[in-house]
């Protein structure tokens, strides 16, 4: 998808001025946070499970090659096919090749964020194949021609009346005077439209929350059941998954599942947790004739063994963005690429480049709320700081920032000079502040005084006053 991260500031400004978006974001702030907390509080071993989940993934990442090979072997044994895709382009080519071979006209899709990352829908459409998103949120934003603004609630920025408008525009074969007031009527309409698509589609594409090395299974975690219809009703099921989704055993996956839904939506477990192993067997009542897994790297392997390896533990629950005050202020689209919020601030520069995504790891107060709720205990602020270090090393920050920082550090490294300089500065500022005790505007600090006053110094530093007090004693 088109990269809009370089204009992060403008994106954020637009988001802050968008009254409808601001109302929608209030829901993220209130709903997700409270539900996660209730779910976590209700489970005494929740914190211990987070440790366990982290350890499982760390172990897997240390032996990723081994588990990927074991997984591939099991998929093949079950009658499936594994395709290795080093780049997004490779992945698109592989999927298109499968679709063309079976003469697919329509492809249904369960929610898959990596399909956004590789730009699959555009590629299929450009090649005459219609992709139909079947997750309700994804369906809505597909109609609107938008990208997801949240990794588990892609249409969280859209309100009900906008959905109604979109449905009336898109579903022209239905009675224009029909009642679409209630959320249920919207849901039923989408369900009826999509039901036929499942039968029409030759190929169903899903993502995967986990790949199990022990069994060769792929796992999807959903709430609408659309993923199951997508993957069982088509002739061909294609699973899109990135390398780090592989997990050693069924037991490991069931451990991580216990923190996933609780962290994401506050559910004990999602409505559907579906395990798929290979194509339909002769004795199976249903299922696809072909089962393909496209294993996508697209930058993951270069994160192994470096400062950002911990990020590969991410299970895409969205808790970090649900708890992020910056995300709450600007929403997901402002981040300008597939992955928003704190996880996006670390992942986007890793998968694209820090030159393009430099704003993302900087637009954080390091408040640490993301890390405090991450079920995989990913040190997100620490890794954002790593990105700032990379930027500094490569001189990517504005020259004025570097100069200011250098000047400050020059004095801060020399205590005697620092005392003299700060004493003078504080005295000057104290004199200029007059009787108000604060500044309404200040040269070089307009970013601050644009929105708030700057409390003025008292006129002397503590060090000066302390020395005077000692001298007097």
């Amino acid at each position: 998808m088109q990269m809009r991260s370089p204009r992060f500031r403008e994106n954020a400004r637009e988001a802050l001025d968008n009254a409808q978006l601001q109302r929608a974001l209030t829901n993220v702030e209130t709903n997700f946070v409270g539900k996660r907390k209730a779910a976590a509080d209700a489970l005494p071993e929740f914190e211990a499970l987070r440790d366990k989940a982290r350890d499982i993934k760390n172990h897997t990442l240390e032996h990723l090659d081994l588990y990927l090979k074991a997984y591939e072997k099991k998929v093949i044994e079950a009658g499936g096919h594994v395709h290795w895709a080093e780049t997004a382009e490779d992945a698109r080519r592989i999927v298109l090749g499968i679709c063309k071979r079976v003469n697919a006209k329509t492809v249904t899709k369960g929610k898959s964020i990596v399909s956004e990352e590789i730009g699959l829908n555009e590629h299929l459409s450009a090649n005459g194949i219609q992709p139909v998103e079947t997750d309700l949120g994804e369906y809505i934003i597909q109609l609107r021609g938008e990208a997801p603004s949240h990794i588990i609630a892609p249409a969280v920025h859209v309100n009900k009346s906008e959905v109604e408008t979109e449905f009336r525009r898109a579903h022209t074969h239905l009675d224009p005077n029909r009642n679409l007031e209630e959320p249920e009527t919207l849901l039923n309409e989408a369900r009826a439209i999509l039901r036929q698509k499942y039968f029409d589609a030759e190929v169903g594409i899903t993502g995967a929350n986990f790949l199990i090395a022990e069994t060769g299974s792929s796992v999807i975690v959903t709430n609408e059941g659309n993923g199951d219809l997508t993957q069982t009703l088509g002739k061909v099921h294609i699973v899109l998954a990135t390398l780090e989704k592989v997990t050693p055993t069924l037991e490991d996956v069931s451990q991580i599942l216990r923190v996933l839904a609780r962290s994401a939506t506050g559910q004990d477990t999602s409505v559907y947790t579906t395990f798929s192993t290979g194509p339909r067997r002769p004795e199976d009542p249903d299922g696809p004739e072909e089962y393909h897994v496209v294993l996508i790297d697209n930058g993951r392997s270069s994160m192994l063994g470096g400062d950002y390896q911990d990020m590969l533990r991410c299970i895409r629950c969205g808790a970090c963005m649900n708890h992020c005050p910056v995300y709450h202020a600007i929403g997901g689209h402002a981040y300008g690429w597939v992955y928003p919020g704190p996880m996006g601030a670390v992942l986007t520069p890793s998968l694209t480049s820090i030159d393009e995504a430099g704003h993302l790891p900087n637009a954080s107060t390091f408040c640490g709320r993301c890390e405090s709720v991450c079920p995989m205990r990913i040190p997100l602020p620490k890794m954002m700081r790593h990105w700032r270090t990379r930027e500094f090393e490569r001189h990517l920050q504005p020259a004025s920032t570097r100069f200011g920082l250098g000047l400050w550090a020059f004095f801060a490294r020399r205590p005697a000079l620092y005392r003299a300089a700060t004493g003078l500065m504080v005295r000057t500022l104290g004199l200029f502040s007059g009787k108000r005790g604060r500044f309404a505007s200040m040269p070089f600090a307009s970013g601050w005084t644009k929105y708030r006053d700057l409390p003025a110094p008292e006129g002397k530093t503590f060090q000066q006053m302390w020395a005077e007090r000692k001298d007097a004693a």
Partner: protein
Amino acid sequence: MSDTPRVALFVTCLADLFRPSVGFAAVKLLEEAGCAVEVPRAQTCCGQPAYNSGDKADARGVAEVAIRAFEGFDYVVAPSGSCAAMIKKHYPELFADDPVWGPRADELATRTFELVSFLTDVRGMETVEASFDGSVTYHDSCSGLRELGISEQPRKLLASMEGLMLKEMEESDICCGFGGTFAVKYADISNKMVSKKTGHVEEAEADLLVAGDLGCLMNMAGKLKREGKATRVRHVAELLAGMTDQPAIGEHKGTPAEKARVDG
């Protein structure tokens, strides 16, 4: 260690420059807790501005100044969760691969504390002598809360103050939008965050807003003043030390003081 520990006060750069009364309040509280307080002259800043801007060389340079300045004291105490966490949590990381400074950083980290948690957790302080005739709301600054686990300690000491009524605001544990250079670099986003915060402060209907970090306090006080809101703002140490006769943050000597009362 004797019964009277030698404590170095790490004033922190913001308190040194903008709010010396926080330093004096810290000294008073530490002395009440039975400490002999000294203020090493050769201290400057913890180095966070460089560290969080990715400038590791300058961060190390500034941190070395602090490590030297605070050598030999039983404890180092800062009236800031953010600066204390920088020393306690981040210095060891900053010098992890340094055979000379690494052990010194680790050792300093074990001796360094944030003021309020030091008073309660290390010195066993249960009550303070000061009283306050009015209502107070407390903002949990992020570093203190999430890196050092400071939440109950200030509330316990505030509750011990005669006359003081604690009025909790909604979302007291959500960031105020300061974030150091963030407040200037991403002023629009920061403004949205601090506006939410001052809204919650106003809804709490308290006379006074307190917190443990001057950065957050200057941000919130500056916004409250800009919005023309009446809630006054102080560092929690000033209130606990009974030093509320000084003008509040962003105010001047001419501004009438709140109904402060200091016993003893």
